[in-house]
């Protein structure tokens, strides 16, 4: 994987939507326990639609850049649309092949998004196995 890929470094250095929302509908945090990377996602929602997004996080370039890239696509999406985002899409966003050792870095954003939406619906969170297994 080319970690120097310009889009990855750009998002890592200048993360989009990395801010605190004033009155989020829901906030949820996930961690990649094997490396300690974290992402906390806040969404403002109305009628099951994402109006605003803010997030914070710490970790490697892959996990943080992927969250930044994903954040650019979420506003205006319905819960169902956001829940249907597949792992392949995150790989497309990153644009470089991600090896098995870094898969969870890449998918931390998606895992957090899905569980934030589940939290908003008062549903139990899904496991990493489910997130990684969804094609």
């Amino acid at each position, binding site marked *: *994987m080319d970690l120097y890929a310009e889009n990855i470094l750009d998002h890592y250095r200048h993360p989009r939507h990395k801010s605190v929302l004033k009155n989020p509908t829901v906030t949820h945090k996930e961690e990649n326990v094997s490396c300690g990377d974290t992402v906390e996602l806040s969404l403002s929602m109305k009628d099951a639609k994402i109006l605003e997004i803010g997030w914070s996080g710490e970790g*490697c370039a892959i996990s943080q850049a992927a969250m930044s890239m994903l954040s650019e696509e979420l506003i205006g999406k319905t819960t169902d649309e956001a829940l249907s985002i597949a792992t392949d899409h995150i790989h497309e966003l990153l644009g470089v092949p991600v090896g098995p050792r870094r898969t969870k870095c890449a998918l931390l954003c998606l895992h957090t998004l899905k569980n934030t939406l589940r939290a908003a619906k008062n549903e139990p969170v899904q496991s990493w196995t489910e997130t990684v297994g969804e094609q």
Partner: protein
Amino acid sequence: MHYDVEAVRRQFPILSGGICYLDSAATSQKPNIVLRAMDTFYTSQNANINRGVHALAEAATVAFEDARKTVQRFLGAKHAHEIIFTRNATEAINLVAKTFGRSLAQKDRIALTLLEHHSNIVPWLQLKEEKNITIDWIGLETDGSLNESSIADVLSKKPKLLAITGVSNVLGTKIPLKEIIKKAHANGTLVLVDAAQMAAHEKIDVQDLDCDFLAFSGHKVYGPTGIGVLYGKEKLLNDLPTFLGGGDMIQTVTTDGFTAAELPRKFEAGTPAIAEAVGLKSAIEWIDSLGIAAIAEHEEHLLAHALEKLQTIKEVKVLGPKDAKKIASCISFTVDGIHPHDLTQILSEKGVYLRAGHHCTQPLHNHLGVVATSRISVAAYNTIEEIDRFATEISHAISAWKK
């Protein structure tokens, strides 16, 4: 005597491709002679041990028991039957936690240090869960050495056992074991030494140390995976209840019960890793042929050079002692602005292999206030040129990342 590192390197087939392997604290590479020893065992001696009287069974049994005697000499143990073969250091520590631990009760205490690897933490935490015992932690100085007053404080609570590493697998800190063991014994505390990180870098003499138990892994001392060792004082091992049940560990079995075999078989249920024991024997003989003191001296040069190089890079922060005489095996560090996983991946693409993460020491990383670090670790086959190459690649990564 001149230490000919190129001659050492040539004995490691995996290194011939020009990789810069700086992850020997995770597992060391294996010299040809170890691979050949295991091959020879399988091609000419393979049979199950301790059963059957045919020639091969006897040859295999002799080879396995020879390996035990070699380990006995390596550790300076009084008896060969004080050497128990396990899968690895983790299993050796678990053996003690699960057998010695059986007699513990709620009021009892176990002492650990913040430097411990998860393998010397979790078995005791499991015991805490099971028996509601108390775990006391020996704290650290800012440079990663053990805090003296914390040692005194923890030992004054008279723990039943202190489980302590010989060398930190993160900071490389060398622990003054003999002194601490003496203090522990004065308080009636037994001592288990986790020598997984130490065994390849320092001469061990269990009788001189007077430790009660000691554990190490074959794969970190140039031997194969799947074989580890528990040393225990004869009387203590005799007094412990049995661990895993099965073939080999019994004297007699009836429909009502069993009697345990004598040491060492009491703790070696099932067919052991025979070829791996043979490989470990060969690895220890290989270390002896170079001399562990000569290896340690060579590694100290490498670590001193690495400390010097790393400290010239302003973005690098070295964790732990900055004096190569105080450390063995490894150095951990962080680089401003580059996550350890990113750094390791960038360097990996340049053929420089190090470790990133929490190195199975989350309590230590919490104490240091960092989630993850990068670590280089050295072995007999590493060169000054490799340390230079590593430092150059770190500098390249920093400038490329920051442009």
